[in-house]
């Protein structure tokens, strides 16, 4: 194995690690290709610095590269050498074309799913006593007003949901009401899609502004019914 073999194995190994191993580590996620490219660039710079530390290692590192490029005593590899000389400009041209081409993708939307509620809603607690009767009543209101979109099974799959993007919240999903306080739900139900702040754009939420149709007490009961029906508990500060 020459002085050039190890660096190349290192580069390939690094790429394979970043692309295929790292995303599978629990708690990790696939890396964007730009980040992988940056890491590979850093690895390559490190290798070049390391290999050129001493005159000897520098010769061992650059020697084979130089011999290949100048085509001196490389015998059967001559054809490959020409291949690289043709391929390299083509690759540069192709990458340039790719980076200047106009994207066919629409603008990216960075919607904040749970924007901060207005101050007056933080810390409110449910004034309705948590009795079986109240929960049952809440579920009844839920069936009448909420289930067409949020679904009879609290899973966001109601019959009216299909055309709405973002899809109606799935309350059984632990990343929805389970990580929110009751006061947050009270705000979202009362004000609906039109109550979203600027960071909630694009304004596509079809959620009605229920404060114009339902009394507060009903909304608090609906919240209770939702948590109970979806088998979730509100987030608390304790």
């Amino acid at each position: 194995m020459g002085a050039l073999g190890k660096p190349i194995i290192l580069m390939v190994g690094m790429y394979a690690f970043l692309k295929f191993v790292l995303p599978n580590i629990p708690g990790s996620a696939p890396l964007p290709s730009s980040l992988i490219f940056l890491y590979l660039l850093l690895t390559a710079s490190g290798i070049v610095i390391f290999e050129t530390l001493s005159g000897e290692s520098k010769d061992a590192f650059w020697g084979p590269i130089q011999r290949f490029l100048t085509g001196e005593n490389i015998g059967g590899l001559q054809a490959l050498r020409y291949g690289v000389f043709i391929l390299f400009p083509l690759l540069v041209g192709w990458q340039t074309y790719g980076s200047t081409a106009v994207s066919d993708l629409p603008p990216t939307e960075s919607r904040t799913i749970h924007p901060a509620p207005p101050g007056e809603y933080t810390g409110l607690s449910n004034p309705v006593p948590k009795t079986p009767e109240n929960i049952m009543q809440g579920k009844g209101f839920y069936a009448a007003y909420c289930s067409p979109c949020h679904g009879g099974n609290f899973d966001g799959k109601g019959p009216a949901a299909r055309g709405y993007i973002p899809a109606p919240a799935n309350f059984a999903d632990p990343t929805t009401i389970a990580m929110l306080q009751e006061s947050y739900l009270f705000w979202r139900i009362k004000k609906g899609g039109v109550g979203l702040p600027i960071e909630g754009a694009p304004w596509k939420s079809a959620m009605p502004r229920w404060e114009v149709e339902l009394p507060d007490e009903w909304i608090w009961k609906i919240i209770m019914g939702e948590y109970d029906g979806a088998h979730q508990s509100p987030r608390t500060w304790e």
Partner: protein
Amino acid sequence: MKPANQIMKQVLRSGIGVLTAIVVVGGATISFAQESVSVRATLMTGGVPVDDPSAAVWTSAPPATFPMSPQVHWQNRIQEVTVKDVIVRALHDGKQMAVLVEYADPTQDPDDAAALEFMVGDKKAHFAHGQPMLQVEGGPVNIWFWKNKTGKAVDMNAKGFGTLKAQEHQDVKAKGIYSNGTWKVVFSRDLSTGHAEEDVQIAPGQFISIAFAVWDGRKDGAGDLVEKGSQKAVSSWWYFRADAPPDYSGYMYAAIAAALALGFQFVLIRKLKKGQSA
């Protein structure tokens, strides 16, 4: 020490691997058009078929399908609607544009109707009729409304439910034909109008927002319309873009870059060869 030839072979074998990896990384960033989230108005030459929903040229425009929901945001809502999807195509010739909306409807009724909705100017608007946002100031929406009974389109504006108003300047045309349980409705207008405060202005190459609404004009047992006003099928906001004229500058830049790379190779090898012989 191994002979140089063998080392080079090893090097090249692994080198090709690295090169492939670079191509894979680079290739992953190349984007593909997503027809399911946007309507693409194909650029054509010759007249846009504003009066002909079944013109052959429509097949040159890629279809995009959007799901529909009953309108629930506004209190005068409905829980079930006839039309579940709309298939949309669009064409433009640099001056005029036409949007073809196609959907299944089992019966042809005088009150069958369809509409397109756009944001006006730079201000964002809520998809539900430009309903005012409570915390932010939104803009109006421009609505192009077609009804079977009248056989024409009305160019309108709204900033919330109950504020719908026909414009003084009527710039939109529409024509619908019904056959085999399917409505095909063409809406058409010039890409730009002189009324930027009221009308959506369409600049080729730019993404704008579009939404759809459909009313099935059927009547219930008592003779009342089932779908009317805000009781209708609606879509969320989607994107619309009129194709920009073809731009070949990308090929030119690619050629320049390739030529530079080629020149760099020549200079590098000359230098290396000189260094070796010195």
